[in-house]
């Protein structure tokens, strides 16, 4: 049982005109066994929240706290957060030329698990996980994300999720840019992870269609840098019908 707890989080990003506050007091608690969806219009700060949790150096936390099972996440380096059990599936996964996917996955698994996985079981584990996501085995020899299509990158993000088995996974617009088949495959991957054990999911999305595949327990509406409303799955249905207008007006600065 794990809990990611975000309290009154304020985050700024450096701009040419000085620091600009993006997150303005986010409160959110995600426990394992739960799937939370964060929905909101473009520019509301959803991705900033994802990056702040992962510890991207571009984003500065000015106040508030993030803890994982009581441990201070903000005091951890990026890699320490991952080893503590946090995972971010990125909206734009980064290309790392020269490093093969196979080598990358093994290095990551070694770091997260604290020891190198036994070669024989590892090869089988990777093969199975790739097959589950419809990834051709030849991708293992390719450089990390290099020349991958948008859909291929997203499949590989979920592949890493499956292999690294974090306590809490943040999925940042994992559904964007996917065709219907890819969306189904990726969603199934997330559901397998979620059902495999004591895992929590924070799903960030702009669209409701992924929620047809991944059933959220809680839906949060994000606007103006904070959570403006939370509810059950029915909240997503309302958004589907009426859009974000009601919330963007509510979240707009006075």
């Amino acid at each position: 049982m794990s809990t990611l707890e975000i309290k009154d989080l304020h985050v700024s990003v450096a701009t040419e005109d000085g620091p600009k506050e993006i997150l303005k007091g986010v409160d959110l608690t995600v426990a394992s066994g739960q799937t939370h969806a964060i929905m909101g219009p473009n520019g509301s700060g959803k991705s900033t929240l994802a990056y702040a949790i992962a510890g991207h150096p571009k984003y500065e936390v000015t106040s508030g706290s993030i803890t994982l099972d009581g441990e201070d996440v903000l005091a951890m380096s990026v890699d320490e957060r991952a080893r503590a059990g946090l995972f971010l599936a990125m909206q734009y996964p980064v290309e790392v030329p020269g490093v093969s996917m196979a080598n990358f996955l093994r290095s990551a698994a070694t770091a997260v698990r604290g020891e190198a996985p036994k070669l024989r079981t590892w090869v089988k584990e990777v093969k199975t996980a790739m097959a589950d996501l419809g990834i051709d085995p030849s991708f293992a020899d390719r450089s990390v994300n290099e020349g991958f299509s948008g859909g291929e990158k997203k499949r590989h993000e979920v592949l890493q999720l499956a292999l690294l088995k974090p306590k809490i996974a943040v999925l940042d617009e994992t559904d964007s840019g996917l065709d219907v088949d890819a969306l189904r495959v990726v969603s199934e991957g997330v559901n397998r992870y979620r059902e495999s054990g004591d895992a929590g999911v924070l799903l960030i999305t702009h669209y409701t269609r992924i929620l047809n595949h991944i059933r959220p327990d809680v839906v949060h509406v994000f606007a103006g840098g904070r959570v403006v409303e939370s509810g059950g799955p029915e909240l997503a249905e309302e958004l589907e019908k009426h859009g974000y207008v009601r919330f963007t007006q509510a979240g707009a600065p006075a």
Partner: protein
Amino acid sequence: MTADVAGLAPELAGAKKGQGDRPLASAGERFTSYDVEAFEVPGGREEIWRFTPMRRLRGLHDGTAAFDGTAVVAVEGAAAETVGRDDPRIGEGGVPADRVAAAAWSAFDTATVLTLDGTPEPVTVTVQGPGEGRCAAAHLQVRTTPHTQATVVVTYSGSGTLADNLEIVLADASQLTLIVTDEWADDAVHVGAQHISVGRDAALRGVAVALGGDLVRNSSTVQYRGPGGDAELLGLGFADAGQHLEQRLLVDHAVPHCRSNVHYKNALQGDGAHTVWIGDVLIRAAAEGTDTFELNRNLVLTPKARADSVPNLEIETGEIAGAGHASATGRFDDEQLFYLQSRGIPEDVARRLVVRGFFGEILSKITLPELRERLEQAVEAELAVTGA
């Protein structure tokens, strides 16, 4: 002293041509001579010197360097000869094309000639620098007999300043794997010239590794004596803070149906780390059926490091099998680091992963497992030394 061209021997007429007064129209026009005084003292603006920090050459280029030391050349695994300057074989590999190479040629007393015959076990040559504050000239010739298949590892190490010429003469239908490593101490300056002459149907597999030293500049020229020649030149360099590594290559295709493949990779880490790669390939009118490719990749690991890359392909005949070149310099950037770290991989491991992956395709070509392991470790040590 300034060279007086008019007073020189007939073969040196035109000595000043192409030494900086005007740009050379072709790499094939460049001036060559065994005589140091036939070359003007370079000032640093000449095309072939413009990337080199002249002040760090310790006078090798302007005649002020006193060759007051000795570089000991030791050969293991085969019998080598020590010969005088008048040995008729000296110069078969090629002729110096810059003033430092000519200075070394003019200064050496004895040369080491290593003749490889049959299928010997790997041969090791070590060239030991003259020691800190000393300067030496050296001359080494590696030659094969027809149909020989051999592997030679030449390692430069130690301290001091060295200018040398390394002649590689491949007899017809011989195959030579040649690995040259510059593994100098931090103070060392090495300006080397390699003169490679490839016989008919002969094949050279070369790997050049540059790791140590304050300044290391190697100029290699490949010439073919008959059709069917093949030269693969791979290179790996790791420049750390303040280090200047320069690799200059000229592959001169003057005979038909020869191949060349140049593939150099450099990594840079630390303030003032500087690599220079110049890749000239010349396909002369007679060289029909030539197949050539040259590639340079540089990986800049930290800001304030500089990689210069100048590929240059001259083609004088359309009847070729293939010719191409490519160059790219990329940064190991913060986003890549963030991505790898976000998967739990610590920063130092992430850097190692990227550098190992980058050099993997060069190191994997080194077929001697012990040497490959040693070089892999040397690369990792470079990372550790300058790692933030």
